C-alpha cells in the first residue's frame, strides 16, 4: 500500500536527482522518464488504494469470511447502489479500463494528490530557490514557477503567462509533458476528462511553491485538448 510519505519520498528523490549539474549530493542521476512512469502509476495506485480503504474497510467489518470473498460479495450487495459499474470487481482485476465515475472517490484522490504535490512544492521551492537572492514580488514568484520549476520538472518553460495584476495568473502549457504520451480512443473531450487526475499533482506543486513564499493561493487546472493544459492561480491572502 502506498502511503503519502513513501510516495513523496520517491517523488522528492526523483525531482531532486533527475536534473543535471545542480546536484550537490554527489552527482547521482536518475533517468528523467522514471518521473513520468512514477506519476502515471501514482494516480492509478492512489485511486485503487483509496477505493480499497474506503470501501474495503466498510465491508471487512461486516463479515468473518476470508477477506477476498467476503469483501467482494459484501461489496456488491451493500455498495452496488453507491458505486458505478466500473468498480464492481476487485481492484486487482479492474486495472484502469473502467474509469470510476464515482465523484466521491475522485474527490478523495484529488485531495491526496494535491496534498502530495503541496508537500513536494514546498520542498522544491526551498531547494531550488535562486541562490542568495530572495523573491519578494508575487509576480516574480509566479515567473519563478513558470521558468525554473517547470524547467526542473518538464525540461521546458510555460508557454504563456497572463495576469490581471490583481491576483489572478493564468499559466498555459501547450505541450504538457505528461500528456504527450497519452491518447484516448476517441480523443477530444473524453480523453481530456480522463487526463484530469494527472494535472492535480502539478496544481499542488504550484500551490506548495507559492505557499513557501507566504502567498496563499488556490490553483485550478483544466485541459481542453490533450497536450495542452491551463493552470489558474488565484491569490487568496491579502499579501
Amino acid at each position, binding site marked *: 500500500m502506498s502511503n503519502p*510519505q*513513501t510516495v*513523496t*519520498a520517491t517523488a*522528492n528523490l526523483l525531482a*531532486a536527482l533527475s536534473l543535471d549539474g545542480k546536484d*550537490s*549530493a554527489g552527482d547521482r542521476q536518475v533517468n528523467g522518464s522514471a518521473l513520468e512512469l512514477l506519476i502515471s502509476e501514482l494516480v492509478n495506485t492512489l485511486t485503487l488504494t483509496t477505493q480499497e480503504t474506503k470501501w474495503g474497510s466498510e465491508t471487512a467489518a461486516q463479515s468473518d469470511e476470508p477477506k477476498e470473498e467476503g469483501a467482494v460479495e459484501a461489496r456488491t450487495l451493500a455498495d452496488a447502489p453507491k458505486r458505478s459499474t466500473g468498480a464492481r470487481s476487485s481492484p486487482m482485476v479492474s486495472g484502469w479500463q473502467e474509469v470510476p465515475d464515482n465523484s466521491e472517490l475522485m474527490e478523495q484522490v484529488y485531495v491526496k494528490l494535491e496534498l502530495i504535490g503541496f*508537500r513536494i512544492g*514546498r*520542498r522544491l*521551492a*526551498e*531547494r531550488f*530557490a*535562486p*541562490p*542568495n*537572492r*530572495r*523573491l*519578494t514580488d508575487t509576480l516574480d514568484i509566479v515567473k519563478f514557477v513558470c521558468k525554473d520549476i517547470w524547467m526542473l520538472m518538464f525540461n521546458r518553460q510555460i508557454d504563456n503567462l497572463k495576469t490581471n495584476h490583481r491576483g489572478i495568473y493564468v499559466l498555459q502549457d501547450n505541450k504538457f509533458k505528461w500528456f504527450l504520451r497519452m491518447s484516448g480512443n476517441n480523443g477530444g473531450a473524453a480523453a481530456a476528462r480522463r487526463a484530469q487526475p494527472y494535472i492535480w499533482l502539478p496544481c499542488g506543486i504550484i500551490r506548495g511553491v507559492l505557499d*513557501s*513564499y*507566504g502567498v496563499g493561493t488556490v490553483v485550478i487546472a483544466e485541459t481542453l485538448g490533450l497536450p495542452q493544459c491551463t493552470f489558474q492561480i488565484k491569490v487568496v491572502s491579502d499579501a
Partner: protein
Amino acid sequence: MSSTYYFAIVGTNDSPLYETELGVQRDESKYLNQFIVHAALDLVDDAQFMSTACYLKTIDRYNDWNVSAYVTPSNTRLMLLHETKADDAIRLFFTDCHELYLKTLLNPFYEPNTPIQSQAFDIKVNMLAKKYLF
C-alpha cells in the same frame, strides 16, 4: 580565547526549530540568549525588506553580543549570537547550515516548521561551527 556562540533556527511562526550553544558558555547567559534572539526577530523583519540578499549581516547589538541573521527563501531565519566580528566566516557558516537545513527538509518524514530533533543534524552543525567559527 573563549569565544562563545549561540545559534538558533527560527521558523515562520517565530518558534525555534533548533538551538545550540557552541564554545565555552558562561552560566548567566543561557536564558538571555533566547531573549536576545527573540527581540532581534523584529529587526530581521525590517532588514529583510531592505535587501534581497539572504545574508543580512549584523542586525542588532546587545551589550557585548552581536546578532547576525540569514533568511532563507521560505522565511526561515538562521540567527547567530556572537561576540567577535567575522562577517565572511559567519556567512560561510550560514550557507552551510542552510544546506543542512535543506537536506532536513528533503526528508519526507520531517514536517516543515517543527523542531529538528535529528542527532546527525546536531553533530554536523557542531562540525561546521568548529570549521568556520573557531
